[in-house]
């Protein structure tokens, strides 16, 4: 496991925000990601936009389109990561074709090598189930990066065991069926999924549908080690874009939302943990 990701779960519940890199443009996006870091992010999932994001709901699809239209490419993404000034470890979330094409016939290794060079610490690849993951797994092992798998509500029995053999960093527990997107209800499926993972010693982070501090509190109280929040944050970026709010206002709104979610997570934790430092 990468040291950074391991440490992120070491003292209390981890808050893991997601944003698409380059949404709505390169410069603003840098500020937004840094705002999340100030707001208490323990790990940050950075989306490298792909033209066919089949696992994403409408909110993140739109973010991906904005990022692509602003000129985001894999190489620009790596520059983006290098330029970011954040403390939280960074995980790249993208689709397999981009990883594969970067290698130009040499498989996923060149992408992983470059990711390692710019300081990324892991990957989430929503269209890469454990069955197809060996080449990427090998490259991640070579460079000491984590490969994070998603456990769905439909993942049971043998599949779950096989996946747990491959996973490192944390398990991404999909709270409910469907694509990504904020929902008001936080599903019962979460409890069931967490029960199924009770014996798993890799940290369990729950995503899909969390949008408030209360949700975060409930999920952590139910036994999760972390929460992953994407659409609720992307909504703030989209609203800022639509209202032509100054980047600084949107960044402030993101930082405030991050604090709310992080505080919720802390409140849900049975352990006594210090409140995040105020800047």
């Amino acid at each position, binding site marked *: 496991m990468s040291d950074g990701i391991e440490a992120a779960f070491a003292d209390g519940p981890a808050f893991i925000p997601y944003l698409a890199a380059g949404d709505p443009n390169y410069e603003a996006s840098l500020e937004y990601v840094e705002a999340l870091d100030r707001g208490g992010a323990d790990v940050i999932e950075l989306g490298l936009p792909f033209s*066919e*994001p*089949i696992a994403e709901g409408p909110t993140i699809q739109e973010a991906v389109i904005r990022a692509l239209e602003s000129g985001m490419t894999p190489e620009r993404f790596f520059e983006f990561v290098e330029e970011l000034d954040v403390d939280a470890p960074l995980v790249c979330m993208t689709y397999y074709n*981009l990883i594969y094409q970067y290698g130009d016939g040499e498989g996923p290794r060149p992408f992983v090598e470059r990711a390692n060079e710019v300081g990324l610490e892991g990957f989430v690849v929503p*269209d890469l189930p454990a069955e197809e993951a060996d080449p990427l797994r090998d490259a991640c092992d070579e460079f000491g990066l984590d490969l994070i798998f998603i456990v769905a*509500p*439909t993942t049971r029995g043998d599949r779950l065991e096989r996946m747990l053999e491959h996973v490192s960093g944390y398990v991404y527990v999909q709270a409910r069926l*469907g*694509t990504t997107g904020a929902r008001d209800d936080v599903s019962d499926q979460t409890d069931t999924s967490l029960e199924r993972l009770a014996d798993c010693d890799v940290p369990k982070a729950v995503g899909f549908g969390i949008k408030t501090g209360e949700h975060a509190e409930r999920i952590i109280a139910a036994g999760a080690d972390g929460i992953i929040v994407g659409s609720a944050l992307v909504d703030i970026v989209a609203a800022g874009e639509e209202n032509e709010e100054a980047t600084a206002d949107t960044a402030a709104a993101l930082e405030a939302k991050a604090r709310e979610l992080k505080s919720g997570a802390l409140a849900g934790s049975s352990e006594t943990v210090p409140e995040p430092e105020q800047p």
Partner: protein
Amino acid sequence: MTPTDTDTRPTERNRDERTAEDGNFGRFGGQYVPEALMPALEELEDAYRRYVLENEDGFMDDFRRRLRDFGGRPTPLQRADRLSERYGREIYLKREDLVHGGAHKLNNALGQVLLAKYMGKERIIAETGAGQHGTATAMAAAHLDMPCEIYMGRTDVNRQRPNVFRMRINGAEVNPVDAGRGTLKEAISETMRDWSQTVEHTHYVIGSVVGPHPFPAMVRDFQAVISEEAREQILEETDGLPDSVVACAGGGSNTMGAFAEFIPDESVSLVAVEAGGSSLEVDEAAGVAPNSATLSTGEEGVLHGARTTLLQDSHGQIMESHSVSAGLDYAGVGPELAHLVDIGRVTPVNVDDRVALEAFHRLSTEEGIIPALETAHAFGYLHAVGTDADTALTDADTPPVESDDPLGETIIINVSGRGDKDLETVIEQTAEMGLEAAPDMSVFDGGLR
């Protein structure tokens, strides 16, 4: 080919080699889907093996009976007299346009909806490009009493209105998809999103030999009835195998259906005709390939669940494709077809929008068959080769055909569907391109819409 080689029933002869047990065709295929869908694919693999390959509960007998009684099979293999005379060859048409619904699409849709029923699923979803697969799925779902929702790109909804009406009239919901250019690629992505929420009780009837395993193998097996019949019919009719089989290729379901049983017959050339669109040039900055010639110009990548050949930019972003024919307008292609091209068994060629449109009119006026615009591409290629073998349409990336005449004396062309759905597009495009060989429709201006 000696007579003894043809004695064994092709189905038995080929079944083993045809089935990709692990979901891989050479280096193509696989299962690149979100984890939430994997258990459904495992369940489907199990159902495919038991019901389709092993005929459990008489599934295949039931399927064949329904294809006959509901679908109107077998379809004829018709000698095309005027085309044969025009090109100096023996040209046979496999009349899939006569299948119920007007296209080969029912073979697969009926198979999958029936399979969903045997699996105890309660709801059917499907994507559609030209609307032919959506129509076939809506008909099969009505026939088998299953609720059905179809996803269709907005552009395709607008250019294939008759099929939208047919789907609605059969009782299916039609959900327009506004993302991207609003064609097949976006419709598939959206259907996958629906499926990832509803997978426990819903079956996704994918419309071509694309997507994750077991779809490419299973759809091919349902469509293989085309070549099973055609092979027997041509042996009966001519006492021999054809020199070539020609089919248009978008995703590749009619192509694989028409080729499947001929693959082991090495003397038979298999020619896949893709849409050259308006140009084979790619606009990388705009992310647009104004064609759908995936096999001829694409590169290996991963899309919609499979490793296959794709139209993509240098970063791996999927390009927006184009064809005058909505059913060929797709940036990917079935992994088995990509493999067969890779090993040299299938020859990919392409013809552009104009050649296809001319062929559409030729078949309509000379043979009395109005073909789908997809199908017209196959006839466009015949015409290009038929006129003069040396001007066969290939591009720089396509290996040149080895013999001067890739088609030979006896040719089967798969008439994958009929063209009623395309009439508005055809009349519009014919006027726009100023085609001379087409009937003058100007007197009807304003009265068609």
